[in-house]
């Protein structure tokens, strides 16, 4: 499984050990995130995107689905998005729904 989570300062930090978050793994990524909400210790999440060079609309869809499922409870922040990923968020206006911070540390510290 290319997804991992650890706890830090009250947050669950989820990292993706893949350079591509695309349709071949988006559904298992969504399931992983849903599991975190249902069984995880915390609904305060930071997703570390630092290794992800490429994301497509299905990766974006998994993130939106997770945000919807949280239903306004807790927090889902994104960290360390690379240029192509940022470009995708801006293009699709998803930067309006997601808080994207340059580093995981800044994501944790951000209020």
């Amino acid at each position, binding site marked *: 499984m290319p997804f991992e989570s650890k706890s830090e300062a009250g947050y669950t930090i989820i990292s993706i050990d893949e350079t591509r978050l695309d349709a071949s793994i988006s559904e298992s990524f969504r399931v992983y995130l849903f599991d975190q909400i249902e069984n995880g210790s915390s609904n305060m999440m930071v997703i570390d995107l630092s290794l992800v060079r490429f994301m497509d609309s299905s990766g974006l869809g998994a993130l939106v689905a997770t945000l919807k499922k949280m239903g306004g409870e807790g927090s889902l922040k994104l960290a360390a998005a690379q240029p192509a990923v940022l470009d995708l968020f801006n293009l*699709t206006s998803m930067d309006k729904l997601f808080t994207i911070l340059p580093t995981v540390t800044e994501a944790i510290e951000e209020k």
Partner: protein
Amino acid sequence: MTDEKSQTVRLEIDSELANTTLVAMAVRGLCAMTTLSPVEVNRVELCVVEIVNNAIEHAYSSEKGHKVEVSVNLLKSYLTLTISDWGKPMDEGQLGDKNFPVDADDPAAWLCSGRGLPIVQSLMDKVEYQSVDDKNSFTMSKQIRWSSSDLI
């Protein structure tokens, strides 16, 4: 790319989502023959991935064993990609919308899918869909902007 002659290479994969990366990386390599900037190359990659995945997921219902063809055509001023499948044709009504409306206060309306075609229509200069006989082809073109130093 020093004359107006057109050059074409055809790529072919089997209909598995894991194979889309192969097309993406090959197209990235081909983009190095053009004057596209790194940001534009990323966008071309995104568009080709969206349309190849659509062919696999929608035309072939995610069934392995079918052919997806990507024809890459380089002209002095255009890069054209044609993605073809021999599966279920797309309803052309799908092409048209290229907006991304989003209301942060209305979670119920947030879309978890359906952004592939609007992305491609936003990023490409020209988009076309055609079904001829059994073959469905999605064609998209991007203008290759020339820097002034190339206009000698």
